[in-house]
């Protein structure tokens, strides 16, 4: 497969080889990855619970998103970088791993869900973003987001149990 050749090249690069051949580099990168993903999931759920009308109701949804999401994005950036490094160290095998593929699909769906929210929701958020009540569309996006991120963690753990 054409893609496998590209991944084969990737895992032969100096940086990928350094990660796969060094005994402590991978665990360190993985630890940072877990810390980052824990903060992504935890902070995004603060926003999701507000959109669901469950918590932080004394703060407008719009303000809460401005307060919290920068930290979510920062942590996501770290998770993406560390995840890419781990992928590079054994690219061909990861690319064929069921849970790795599933995790990428889930991440894409979570991104799509967010894009839908911003395209459809932000126009209206000026209206409902300051009230305690949230429309059903915001609740649906929040519920999907929570489920997607929980599944991302589950699939991530699945990778750990099926690789090596």
């Amino acid at each position, binding site marked *: 497969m054409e893609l496998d050749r590209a991944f084969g090249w990737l895992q032969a690069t100096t940086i990928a080889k350094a990660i796969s051949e060094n005994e402590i580099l991978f*665990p360190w990168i*993985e*630890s940072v990855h*877990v*810390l980052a*993903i*824990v*903060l992504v*999931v*935890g*902070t995004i*759920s*603060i926003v999701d619970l507000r959109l669901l009308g469950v*918590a*932080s109701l*004394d703060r407008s949804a719009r303000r809460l998103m401005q*307060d*919290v999401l920068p*930290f979510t994005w920062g942590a996501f950036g770290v998770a993406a970088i560390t995840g890419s490094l781990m992928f590079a160290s054994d690219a061909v095998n990861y690319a064929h791993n069921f849970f790795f593929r599933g995790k990428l699909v889930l991440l894409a769906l979570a991104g799509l869900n967010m894009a839908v929210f911003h395209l459809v929701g932000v126009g209206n958020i000026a209206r409902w973003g300051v009230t305690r009540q949230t429309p059903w569309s915001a609740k649906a996006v929040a519920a999907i987001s929570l489920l997607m991120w*929980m599944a991302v*963690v*589950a699939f991530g*753990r*699945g990778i*750990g*149990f099926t690789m090596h």
Partner: protein
Amino acid sequence: MSPVFVKSLNAICVWIDQTQLSQAIQATSWVVPTVQTVHILAIAVVASSALMIDLRLLGVFWTDRPMKDVFSRFLPLVWWPLLILFATGAIMIIGEPARSLKNPAFQLKMLLLVTALIVTGLLQFFERQDAAFGDLRSASRPLPIIIAVASMLLWSAIIFAGRWIAYYA
């Protein structure tokens, strides 16, 4: 560690390993990954809630709101998920007692956890003593900053130590 301690720890591990529950966990391949997923999700709640409190103490989050609001929103989510963490942690220990209890990374994690809980308890104590604790205009700025930095370092180290259990086994 004293030889007596090591010997009794070994005996405890052997005993747990032979229980029916431990055998059942070992025989069912999906239990450990599933329990670990729940464990990580609960850690996500604890670590993120602690981070929000710590960022408020550092003056970069919810500075327009009193400390009391930040505490009532996030402090219960530092304490309550610990029940889930202890329960899922116990299942992992019962499933693989020697791999966890005798593991230096696990022992360090427990030490760090106790320290993090003491720091969180201290924070709660200071806030009860002085409602303006953590207020940016308050005179006692060093203490809230020290607590916030210690809390962030400790929870990060707990997550790191947790991941390293797999590599010391």
